[in-house]
Every structure is written in structure tokens, then in C-alpha cells.
């Protein structure tokens, strides 16, 4: 955690300096002394101080022990799942919400290792149709229709 704390501390100081500098540009646009720059600049000062304290504490060895570690395999699984989700966001705009969602759920369930083809097909179609029906008919909230006219 020591290196992470030092890294975050340095990042915070850089962010705080940038916020202070960037928000000072708002000063001229405001007739009051306590203009749009006032609050972000107070925050940036506090953030910089916190970053500094974090670094000092880390250097002194006052860091929290790590209670949980990222599982590397699991992490890559998560990254791929996000990739599948991004693909789904594009797919939904082409083939429509309900169909896109069914495909997304089926692919993700398969990727996560769910056994049983029928279980996967049924649960992905059921979940997408239920939510689609609630939004379409009950809440009357428009969802992406894709290239098809029948709003599926």
C-alpha cells in the first residue's frame, strides 16, 4: 500500500495544482469576490494538503495493511466483461434494445461459465423482455429501436 499511497498523493497534488490554476480563469467572469472560482480553489487547497499528508504518512510507514488483493485472472475477466458491455452498447443501437440485451446476457453468462444452454437462453430472453416491457409499456420510456421499425 506504501507505493500506492505515495502515487495517489502525488496524483492529488498534481490534480489540485491544475484545478487551482484552471479555475482561476473563472475569476474575471464574475462580479462578486466569491465567484465560480472560489469553491474549486478551496477544494484544490484541501486536496493538495491531503495529498501531502498521504505522502508523509506513507514515507513514515503509516499505511493500512492490504486486506484484499486483486485476483489477476479475475481482473482480466472483468476487463473482458467491460469490453462485452461496450460491444453491447453498439449492438443495441443496431439490432434494438431487447434483442441486443438478450445477446449480451447470453454472451456474458457463457463467458462467466454458466452451464446449461437452455438455462442461459431462457434467463437472458426473459430478463431482457421483462425490463423491455416495463420500460416500453409501463413507464413509457423510449429505448433504442435499432434498424428495425418494430421497436424491439
Amino acid at each position, binding site marked *: *500500500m506504501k507505493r500506492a499511497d505515495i502515487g*495517489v498523493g502525488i496524483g*492529488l497534488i498534481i490534480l489540485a495544482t491544475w*484545478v487551482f490554476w*484552471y*479555475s482561476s480563469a*473563472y475569476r474575471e*467572469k*464574475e462580479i*462578486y*469576490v*466569491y*465567484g*465560480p472560482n*472560489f*469553491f*474549486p480553489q478551496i*477544494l*484544490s487547497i484541501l*486536496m493538495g494538503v*491531503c*495529498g501531502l*499528508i*498521504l505522502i508523509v*504518512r506513507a514515507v513514515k510507514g503509516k499505511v*493500512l495493511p492490504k*486486506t*484484499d*488483493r*486483486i*485476483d489477476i485472472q*479475475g*481482473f482480466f*475477466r*472483468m476487463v473482458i*466483461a*467491460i469490453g462485452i*458491455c*461496450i460491444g453491447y*452498447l453498439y449492438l443495441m*443501437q443496431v439490432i434494438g434494445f431487447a434483442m441486443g440485451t438478450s445477446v*449480451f*446476457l447470453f454472451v*456474458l*453468462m457463457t463467458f*462467466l*461459465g*454458466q452451464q446449461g444452454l437452455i*438455462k*442461459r437462453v431462457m*434467463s*437472458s430472453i426473459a*430478463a*431482457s423482455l421483462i*425490463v423491455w416491457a416495463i*420500460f416500453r409499456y409501463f*413507464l*413509457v*420510456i*423510449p429505448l433504442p429501436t435499432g434498424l428495425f421499425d418494430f421497436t424491439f
Partner: protein
Amino acid sequence: MDFGLLSHAFGTVMLNPLNFFFVFIGITAGIIVGALPGLTATMGCALLIPFTFGLAPVQGLLMLMGIFCGGIYGGSISGILIRTPGTPSAAATLLDGYPLSQKGMGGKAIGMSTVASFCGGITGAIIMTFLSPQIAKIGLRFGPPEFFALAIFGLGMIITISGRSLLKGIISALFGLLITTIGFDPLSGVPRFTFGSQDLLGGVTFIPALIGLFGYAQVFRNIEKILILPVVKSKVENILPRLKEIRASLKTIIKSALMGTFIGSIPGTGCDIAAFVAYGEAKRSSKHPERFGTGILEGVAAPEAGNNGATGGAMIPMLTLGVPGDAVTAVLLGALTIHGLQPGPLLFRDHLDVIYPIFAGMIMAQFILLAVGLSGARIFARMINVDRKILTPIIFFLCVVGSYAMRFSFFDVGLSLIIGVIAYFMEYYGYSASPILLALILGPMAEQNLRRSLIISHGDPLIFLTRPICAAFLIIAIFVMITSYYRIKKAMDREAQAIAEKEEID
């Protein structure tokens, strides 16, 4: 308190079957979300807010309150059956709930938890109904300095929700406060930190941020650990506790419910602290404290009455002053705003048509919780067994829909995903997401009222100390922060000592 308005509100809420339906849906969804380990009541409310967009404000809020009450109760089911609390507030329940389950009395423990939750919930709801208008009356006298002090008072809660490091909690909150400065400045109209993006002119939208912090982040953790987490199966038999058993625990239930409501009403405490305090007090005042922890029904009744009492208590500062009592009420506060209602004293002056049905609905929700809890406990217990590999993709999909539905914007979905990834890493490095949520709620209130106050006083900061209510809030805030800090430090020292002793024995 206007009894005429309250009885009229009861009539309005009760006579419309749709209101029953929405509370029922909320309670059921809340229990399911609460019972599933890894899904908290906060996440449940966040995910289900989009489903209230098309509803009338009262119906939407009734549903969300149902989720809140159901979620807090539902956590006890998995705590009792599989020793994994569905929500943090059920952590105290498993101390006696799980040993009861091991003795083959899991069903009875759930039954007692349901009855105690009902008693706690109804106590909290009644106290909320009668106390809130009085507090709101005081709130009507507030000016910008008082509201700023109130925001500071609310932000003081960061100490209790920071997790293991206060410094990291403060950093999270500062990050959240910085996020609230994105978009048009409400006082001058100057766009800040938008970098030319039209989507950011209105600021970072609350719901996508919320879903990112509590929805996506949890989904990512679940996906990462999906092959590591053990699969535990649950089963439940007889549900109803005997009248004699309820009568034996009644004193504990009433005391815990009152304590829970009081604790819940203090910003920064919340349902989990209420549950532990109620459990501790029940054990302290018991004639047989040595039996606590071995599996007795009183040990289940006390924390459940306490945490459900806290639901009503936590609503008091949220509704009357616009300061959330805990993370779930912070989400509810956001939901009220989305429905065009600004929580605070003015709500009690301008929107009595909403406030009184909320009171009536909260009381009604407790009866529905009792009915749903007792009749459906077996089904909810079976829900815990649903395969994570099916459930996680469905929650992932609900996160996508939830973040999209607010503005029908794919930009919001992307933003929510990014916030989710940040929150996922934050958790690993000891930065809690809850302070960000609190900052998102209280940030605009703090900034606008700080600047307004300084403009009124021509830059003199003494304005915050010369006004009695404002000074009182600041003093209480400092007092609460200091006492909370030492309480948490003491608890952490005890925990560290216990770990060291355990290592020594090993």
C-alpha cells in the same frame, strides 16, 4: 402535525390500489436485493430509481421507501441462513441468527426477524410522522449560513463512513465535492470544467454517478471474484415464531426500536450502528447475557428492531433539513430531487400533498413488509441460491439500463462505467465510495450557501459564529466528528489487538 391532513393522506394512499402495488413491489424488490449478499439496499435503490421515472412522485417515492425498508429487513435472511449479511446493517443479526439456523431454527429466526423489523419499522415511521413537521418548522427560520453549517454537519458524517482510513474518506469526499463543481455554476451561470462538452453543462448527473459508485463497482468485484467466492446453499422450514416467544422478546423489541429510531435520526450513524447498539444494549440489560451469541431469539429481535427503527429515524433529517442520515437516505434524497422535490423545510410548506402521503405510505409499508416477510420468506431464502453466473450479468444489464434511462444518453452509460471502474480500484486501495455519494448530495448545498453567506456578510467569516443556530450546528458537528473519530479509533485498535492476539495464538 395536522391530523386532518394525515388522515386524508391515509385515505388517499389506502384507497388507491396502485399505491399498495408499488409499495408491495418496492418491499419485495428490497427484500430480494437485501437478501442477496453483495447487493446492498443502497445499490437496490440506485438500480430501481429509473423504474420510478414514469410514475407520479408519491408512487415513485413509496416504491423507493419500500425498497429501503425491505432491503434493511432482507439482509437478515442471508445473515441468518448462510452467515453472510445481505446488508451491513444485518451484521449484528447473524451473531445469534446463524447459531439458531445451525440448531435447525433458521425459519423461526427469520420469523422473529420479520416481527421485530415490523415493530421497529412502525415505531420509526410513527416517530418520523410526528416529529418531522416540528423540526421542519425550526428549519424554516434557516438562512444561507445555517444551511452551510447544516451541510458541514452532514459532511461530518464522512468520519463514520470512511471505512478504515479517515484521511482517505476525506480525500474521497473532496473528490466528490470537486465533481459537483462540474457544469453551470448555479450563482453566476458560468460553465465550469465542461471542456466544451454539451453533456457536462448540466453537471455530472446523479443517477449515473450513483450507479457507477454502487452498481458497476460491485458488479466488477463480483465478476472478478466469481470463481473464488464459495457457493453456500440455504434452506428454511417453519417460519412463524410462537406468541410466547414474541412476548418474551417484546420488551427488547420496543427498547431497540426506540433506540434505533433515535440513532438513525442522527446524521452519520445509520442502520448498521443502530443494530449493533441495540444488540449491545439488549445483551447488557439481559438477565442471561452469556446466552447471547449462542443462538437466542432475543439476539435476532434486538438488532432487527433497531435497524428497522433507524429507517424511519434516518428519514427525519433527510426530509426536514435535506441532510441524509446515511447512504440509502442520500439516494432517496437524490430521488426526491429527480421527482422535482427539494427536501428541506420548504417541502413541509409547499408540498404537503407529497409529505403526508409519504408518512402514511411509510406506516403502510411496515404492514406490507410483515405480510410479505412472513408469507414469502421461503421463496426469498431460495433466491439466495440463484447462480451468481446468471445474476451478475442481469445486474450488469440493470446498471446499463439505469444509467441510460435518466436522460436516454449513452454518454451517461459511458460516464457511469468510468466511475464504476474508478470506484472498483478505490475500494481496493482503502477509499470508500460512500463519502463521494454524500459529497454529491451536500456539495451544491455547501457551496451555494457558503458563497451566499459571505456575500451577505461582505466577506466576514464571523457570520457563521454570530448566528446562534448556525454556531450551534457547527459546534455539534465538531463534537460529533471528534467523538465519532475516537469511537472508531477505539474500535479499530480493538480489532487490531484481536488480530495480533489471534496471530500470536496461531
